[in-house]
């Protein structure tokens, strides 16, 4: 009986949302406690398993664990005490260029496995936090917004993070902190400081580059020997 009721409620909500031109973004898969959704006009509704969430909603998890499956297959699990805004969401079941998801993490943290939006067209997916914008390349990650943003990559996929000054790529198992952390320390620890040098022929590991860089001994002291030699260039 409960199944009928849930199906009926969902159907009604979908019809109501369609009538008002609001796109269904996804559905609550799991909930503990009493999270709520706040729509664009400010009206609130409690979230329960099976309920739809819509483009324009802001989710407030309160003290709950909340999990949502989006229509493009994205799965999100929100930490307790998180606020998350679905700024814009469009997906008609196809990756035809009209799809778009734009999210904003206002508070707390979330873990996600991303879906079809952004898979073909990376610009279609944006997740903003106060200190950075995240673009995806089909991935799994966990975000925590607490005096700066900490991003933990999951076991596969990739992220691009724009902190307003540069784009950082993250791949599986990498961790990045944006804002409130020391950029140089991160660079040194990740070895990225070495990447500052031009990579072409100079980027030969070992702290030393053996470039084919002639010191001039192609004519030796007897005027006979001809050969190319190399000088060793310091590359700290």
């Amino acid at each position, binding site marked *: 009986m409960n199944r009928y009721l849930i199906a009926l409620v969902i159907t009604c909500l979908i019809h109501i949302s369609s009538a008002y031109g609001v796109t269904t973004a996804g559905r609550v*898969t799991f909930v*503990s406690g009493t999270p709520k959704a706040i729509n664009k006009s400010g009206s609130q509704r409690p979230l329960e*398993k099976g309920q739809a969430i819509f483009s324009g909603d802001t989710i407030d998890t309160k003290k709950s*664990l909340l*999990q949502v*499956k989006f229509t493009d297959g994205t*799965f999100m*699990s929100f930490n307790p005490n998180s606020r998350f805004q679905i700024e814009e969401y469009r997906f008609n079941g196809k990756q035809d260029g009209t799809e778009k998801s734009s999210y904003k993490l206002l508070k707390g943290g979330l*873990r996600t496995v991303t879906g079809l939006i952004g898979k073909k067209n990376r610009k279609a997916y944006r997740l903003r936090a106060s200190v950075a914008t995240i673009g995806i390349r089909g991935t799994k990650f*966990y975000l925590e917004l607490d005096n700066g943003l900490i991003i*933990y*990559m*999951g*076991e596969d996929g990739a992220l*691009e993070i724009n902190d307003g*000054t*540069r784009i950082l*790529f*993250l791949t599986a*198992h990498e961790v990045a902190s944006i804002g409130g952390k*020391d*950029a*140089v*320390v991160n*660079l*040194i*620890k990740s*070895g990225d*400081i070495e990447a*500052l*040098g*031009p*990579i*072409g*022929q*100079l980027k*030969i*590991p*070992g*702290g*030393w580059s*053996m470039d*084919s*860089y*002639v*010191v*001039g001994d*192609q*004519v030796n*002291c007897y*005027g006979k*020997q001809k050969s*190319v*030699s*190399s*000088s*060793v*260039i*310091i590359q*700290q």
Partner: protein
Amino acid sequence: MTKLLSITLLCFVLLPAYASDAWQEAESLLKLGKAEAAYQILAPMEEEYAGEATFDSLLARSANQSGHYTEAIFAYERLLTITPGDNEARYQLARIYYRLGETAKAENTYQQLLSSSPEKQIQTSAEKELEAIQKGMLFNPTKISGYLGLTIGHDSNVNGATNDSTLIIPDLGSGSSVSYLPASFQEQSDSFRALLAGITIDHQLSRNLSLYGKGSISTRTHNSQDAFDSDQFAIDFGVKLDHQTNQYLLGYVVSEYRLDGDEYRQLRGAKASWSHVLSRNRAFHVSGFHGQVEYNGQDIKDVDRSTIALGYTVLLSGSLAPRIKASIYFGEEDNLNSLTPHLGHNLNGVQMVGELTLNGPLKAYTALYHERRDYGGQDPLFLKTRKDHQTTFALGLKYEPAPNWELVPEIRYTDNDSNLSSYEYDRLQANLLLLKHF
């Protein structure tokens, strides 16, 4: 209408039975070690059955054992909300957090677990792993990374030779004689292709101490100037210590340069470096090297090489996010044969590298190197002490079309200015590098 209602009711009666069968099948597969197969059965049912303890337990275990760690976290977090006393689930969740580098969450979860007096086996494992986290140890203390690259390009002077066809050699008497260099001894241009590969292994010994090892190989082949085909091998290993805002490194380097298939020169020696973070975006580096450069079959040219370098790195904010690294260095190549001091030299130089982020994954860089070399004695052929000034300027783009891929077009100009005209040359190289990091 009656028919439709009957079918719907039948579905609702049969679905739980179907689900139960599917769960049993998944459980059996899990017992047989076929976690991926079990996961594939359960994953499509998640939306419907999430929140049912039996289902979440099965899904969490199959996802965890098949390497779908993020999905396993979703299921374990649900399961622990429903059955907070499931110590095995809490232990596995803590372990996944640790594996994924989420150490604060892992530590908190291990502590929650230990405070609930778990079974002996779980307690022992949890204590051991918690201690490792508190000691700053990574879940997997060994990291392996590397790269593969392919370069194509053109070099205006593959042999780094003068374009002057004459050699003016002073006589011991009053005048001088003129010799003519054959065309093959003068500068030769050619196209080339090169392959390069490298691997780096880091092994963490404790919170601050790690061992590292790096190996690289590259080979450059010319279209027609086979005599200048070259191969390079390098190995670098040592120990790294991180302490607060300092990183210390002590290592040993061996590299070999082969020309036309024959060993030409080998370098080996010890290096040490200290990097100190001055502020959020600035760091200072000091490094030193002492070793030997040996020329195969030309022992007369062997030298001891010593250098010390001081460097400064600054990362600036702004729309182009400039990154600048500059260093100065001093050193000497001391010829081991007292009869041929002119083969050794003192050297000093500067290096400047700058990089700008132009547009997301597109960066531009420029590099300027200048080295001055004062040789240690009079050249017996030219009766002069050689002095060289060598300048290299490079300009390039780095484009990252996808994570771990780089496409790098570069042009590089080198000019060697010498007081002995036969050592004067210039060289223009243009190349395109495709690099894949892994």
